């Protein structure tokens, strides 16, 4: 009894150690000091959950029964690991890029986020894994019983209670460390660390037993090999089909077992870890299997024939009195069993909770706004319940299958079951043409064939399938015999089941994929999976599509409260330019919503919640189009900006020009003022001085008086004229003048002008009156004013000996040109530009006027729709007056 108590104490302290390790690891991870926790070595060790109690104990039993065939179970994974560049690397990349949480998630998201697929895979995984968990419970129970029985001679009163306690303990551990966080990528540092420790323990235990057996009992390698050859498994008795089939099966199972997927893909946080694992894990497997045959041979030789070969690892040291070694061995087996159950329970509970419980809850629990935090609890609760349920299922399976030999076979049955995921998974990773229908069909066909040809017969004849069905097929249909499908008998049952289930699975998958047409989302997901190396290197954010805004609103209301949720949705809808409460579920919005939700329920839950409603949708065509639109909009916006900037530049230039003009005008105004004061002062000075003379000088002669008075009068007239001109100009310039449009002949206007200026006879005017008979419709008086001014100028400034003015009229197509050309010296070139400016005078010596005449002329002509310009190169001063032909277009 003392030994048993010690065993119990050791087991309990070992369990306590595991709890402690997991706890510390979680603590470190929370503090961010978990770098060494995520080393490639820990990753490699965590893969060792592949070696369950079935391999720890069962491999020796397997070897004792079938020789080296047990190696196939390790060779398959070795090939997969060594060939990591083919499949594993891609799986890990996809898993990281798509935030995959389980194998069900991977398959469902590859095929357009299909919920049906997720549910199907989850159910299949549960069915395939439950017996396996039962197997672990059995192995722990058996080893415990063996220990107790061999030391005390009496078996434990109730081995079932051991199994129950183990199940409860495992459930507790898994719930504590497996559902601690709802991390987006479902990583569990504590669990992984504990598993790594257990990996070391079980390897060390098996090696210790092996070393003891080889060197302690058999006297070294040479004698050991001789002993092996001499034993009943001393020759190669393996059928080629089984050898190849089992290698394939174990390789397939290695990739598709939910628990392996969990540690390989989900818990992986760096692809580089694969590099170490690619050779270290095969080495681990090699070491695990190295001493299996020696232990089996020694067990067969030394132990009584009725001893269970499945427990040789334990019973050989015990029979040799090595209790300490046996205890280590027990711990190794215990580690193998517990680590497998923990990870399997986590993987299954994640799948069950994410793909079955949550969708059902979201569908059923529609009514009532729930308080915040509610959903987080719900997810955790559903995980925990799922873990408990999975373990309970395992326990019940163990309980009702009654343990024993039937259960030992379940390992391979389970492998073959989960291997059915392989075609859909690999097909999805490497073949763009794989479709949801194909995957569904493949999985269902494979699962059905597996159930019929492997699972049901595994319970033994008469258990579920009657002997008659096994022998003759259902209802006597021979080609449906479970172990001889299509009437082909003689195959090894295992090879038969693997061959038909996998090949029919693949066939259905391929044919339906070829025949069906995938949805856009499926095709995009397919492209993202198959071309994962070209596409994404980082976890992607939400990109909505399938989501219904209303569902999102309902969910958000439950978590955030109705008012906040509605406000959030309304604001977003307004931002998108929509009325009401339902915005388009754009990627931006989904991200924002997820962030908002994570404030209440944590990031992972929010991600999961949005994922549930979005159907985990990643990208849809609409999104791509939206992205394209966005790009287009940005380009448009930027071109708008460019246009605006160009416009601004233009405006600035205009402003600068305007400013320059204003400055120039200001200068001009100053000049004008000084000019006008000067112009006004000159006559005023004359008037003042002569009026002073008239007033103050006594005895002025009448003649002088008359002379002075006429000077004053002349100056006053000049002043008046100047003021008239100024007034005239200002009126013209301000556009306040109204034109008096009349009909008339150009001839008449010119006659009037010439007559008005004929006071002096000095100027000879030459005209061609025939050409002047042109009808006009304009302000004749104003036009005459211009002509008079031009003729007067010629009179005043023409410096020729015999001044002569030629008036030439030219009737053009569009306009009438009237040229006034004199025979003087003309206007110097540098003055030509300024003669039309106010107060511009060509020379000072002939200060006949104020210099406003031409300015007025130009204003008048502009008003009349024509122009007056200096015409150079005519031999004298020449001005051309142009009038529009219609001559009526007065502004």
């Amino acid at each position, binding site marked *: 009894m003392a030994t048993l108590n010690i065993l119990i104490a050791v087991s309990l302290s070992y369990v306590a150690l595991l709890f402690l390790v997991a706890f510390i690891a979680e603590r470190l991870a929370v503090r961010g000091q978990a770098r060494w926790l995520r080393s490639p070595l820990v990753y490699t060790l965590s893969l060792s959950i592949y070696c369950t109690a079935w391999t720890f104990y069962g491999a020796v039993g397997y070897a004792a029964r079938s020789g080296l065939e047990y190696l196939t179970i390790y060779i398959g994974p070795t090939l997969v690991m060594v*060939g990591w560049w*083919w499949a594993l690397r891609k799986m890990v990349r996809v898993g990281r890029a798509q935030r995959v949480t389980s194998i069900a998630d991977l398959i469902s998201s590859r095929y357009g986020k299909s919920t049906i697929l997720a549910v199907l895979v989850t159910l299949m995984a549960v069915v395939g894994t439950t017996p396996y968990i039962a197997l672990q419970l059995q192995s722990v129970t058996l080893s415990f019983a063996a220990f107790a029985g061999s030391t005390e001679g009496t078996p434990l009163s109730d081995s079932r209670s051991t199994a129950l306690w183990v199940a409860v303990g495992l459930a507790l551990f898994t719930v504590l460390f497996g559902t601690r966080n709802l991390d987006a990528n479902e990583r569990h540092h504590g669990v992984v660390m504990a598993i790594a420790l257990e990996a070391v323990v079980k390897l060390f235990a098996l090696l210790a037993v092996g070393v003891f057996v080889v060197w302690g009992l058999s006297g070294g390698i040479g004698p050991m090999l001789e002993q092996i050859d001499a034993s009943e498994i*001393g020759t190669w008795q393996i059928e080629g089909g089984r050898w190849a089939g089992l290698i394939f099966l174990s390789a397939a199972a290695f990739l598709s077992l939910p628990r392996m997927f969990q540690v390989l893909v989900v818990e992986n946080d760096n692809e580089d870890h694969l590099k170490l694992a690619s050779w270290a894990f*095969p080495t681990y497997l090699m070491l695990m299997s190295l001493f299996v045959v020696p232990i089996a041979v020694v067990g067969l030789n030394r132990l009584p024939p009725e001893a269970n070969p499945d427990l040789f690892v334990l019973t050989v040291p015990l029979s040799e009195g090595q209790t300490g070694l046996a205890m280590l061995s027990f711990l190794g087996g215990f580690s193998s069993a517990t680590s497998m159950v923990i990870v399997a329970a986590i993987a299954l509970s994640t799948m069950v909770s994410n793909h079955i419980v949550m969708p059902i809850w979201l569908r059923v629990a529609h009514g009532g706004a729930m308080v915040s935090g509610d959903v987080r609890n719900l997810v955790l609760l559903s995980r925990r319940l799922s873990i408990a349920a999975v373990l309970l299922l395992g326990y019940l399976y163990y309980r009702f299958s009654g343990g024993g030999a039937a259960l030992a076979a379940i390992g391979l049955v389970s492998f073959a079951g989960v291997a059915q995921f392989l075609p859909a998974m690999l097909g999805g990773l490497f073949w763009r043409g794989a479709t949801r229908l194909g995957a569904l069909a493949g999985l269902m066909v494979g699962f059905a064939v597996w159930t019929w040809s492997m699972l049901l017969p595994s319970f033994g004849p008469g258990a579920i399938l009657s002997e008659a069905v096994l022998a003759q097929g259902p209802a006597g249909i021979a080609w449906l015999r479970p172990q001889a499908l299509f009437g082909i008998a003689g195959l090894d049952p295992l090879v038969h089941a693997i061959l038909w289930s996998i090949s029919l699975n693949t066939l259905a998958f391929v044919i339906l994929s070829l025949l069906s047409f995938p949805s856009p989302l499926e095709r995009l997901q397919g492209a993202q999976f198959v071309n994962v*190396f070209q596409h994404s290197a980082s976890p992607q954010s939400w990109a909505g599509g399938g989501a219904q805004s209303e569902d999102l609103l309902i969910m958000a209301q439950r978590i955030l409260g109705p008012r906040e949720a509605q406000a959030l949705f309304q604001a977003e809808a307004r931002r998108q330019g929509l009325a009401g409460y339902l915005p388009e579920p754009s990627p931006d919005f989904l991200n924002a919503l997820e962030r908002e939700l994570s404030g209440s329920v944590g990031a992972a839950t929010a991600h999961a919640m949005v994922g549930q409603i979005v159907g985990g949708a990643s990208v849809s065509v609409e999104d791509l189009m939206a992205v394209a639109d966005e790009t287009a909009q940005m380009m448009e916006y930027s071109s708008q900006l460019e246009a605006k900037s160009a416009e601004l530049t233009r405006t600035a230039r205009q402003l600068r020009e305007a400013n320059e003009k204003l400055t120039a005008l200001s200068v001009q105004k100053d000049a004008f003022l000084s000019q006008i004061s000067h112009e006004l002062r000159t006559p005023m000075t004359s008037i003042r001085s002569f009026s002073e003379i008239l007033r103050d000088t006594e005895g002025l002669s009448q003649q002088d008086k008359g002379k002075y008075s006429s000077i004053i009068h002349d100056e006053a007239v000049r002043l008046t004229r100047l003021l008239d001109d100024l007034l005239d100009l200002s009126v013209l310039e301000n556009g306040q003048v109204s034109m008096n449009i009349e009909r008339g002949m150009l001839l008449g206007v010119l006659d009037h002008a010439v007559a008005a200026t004929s006071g002096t006879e000095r100027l000879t005017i030459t005209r061609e009156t025939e050409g002047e008979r042109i009808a006009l419709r304009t302000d004749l008086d104003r036009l005459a004013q211009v002509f008079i001014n031009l003729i007067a100028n010629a009179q005043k400034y023409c410096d020729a000996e015999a001044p002569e003015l030629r008036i030439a009229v030219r009737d053009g197509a569009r306009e009438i040109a009237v040229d006034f050309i004199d025979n003087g010296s003309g206007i110097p070139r540098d003055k030509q530009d300024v003669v039309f400016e106010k107060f511009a005078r060509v020379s000072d010596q002939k200060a006949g006027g104020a210099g406003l005449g031409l300015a007025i002329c130009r204003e008048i002509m502009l008003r009349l729709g024509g122009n007056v310009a200096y015409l150079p190169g005519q031999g004298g001063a020449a001005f051309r007056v142009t009038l529009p032909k219609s001559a009526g277009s007065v502004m």
Partner: protein
Amino acid sequence: MSDLDGKAGSKSERTPGRAPVFLERSTYRRRRLIDGLRMLPVVGALLWAVPMLWSETAATSTAILYIFGIWAGLALIAAVMARHVDVQAYDPDQNSNRDVSETDM
């Protein structure tokens, strides 16, 4: 431009050891290393398939030596290859999946 390219090409052909050639060489090595990585499981599978041909008279001890010998060899080669391969730098599957047309819909 084309002239420049032509010169660079001929130079690299004539004088191996210059920097650009070195780069090409390392890329080439990397590609071949990955070819090797891809081949490794195939080789392993073929070698491990040999026992299927054995007759029933083959001794278990010989079988153990053969199978475990392959095992150790594979692990060793895989370790050497893994040491030199760069998972992140290589963006692969260059010949497959070039068909982009399927994404257009």
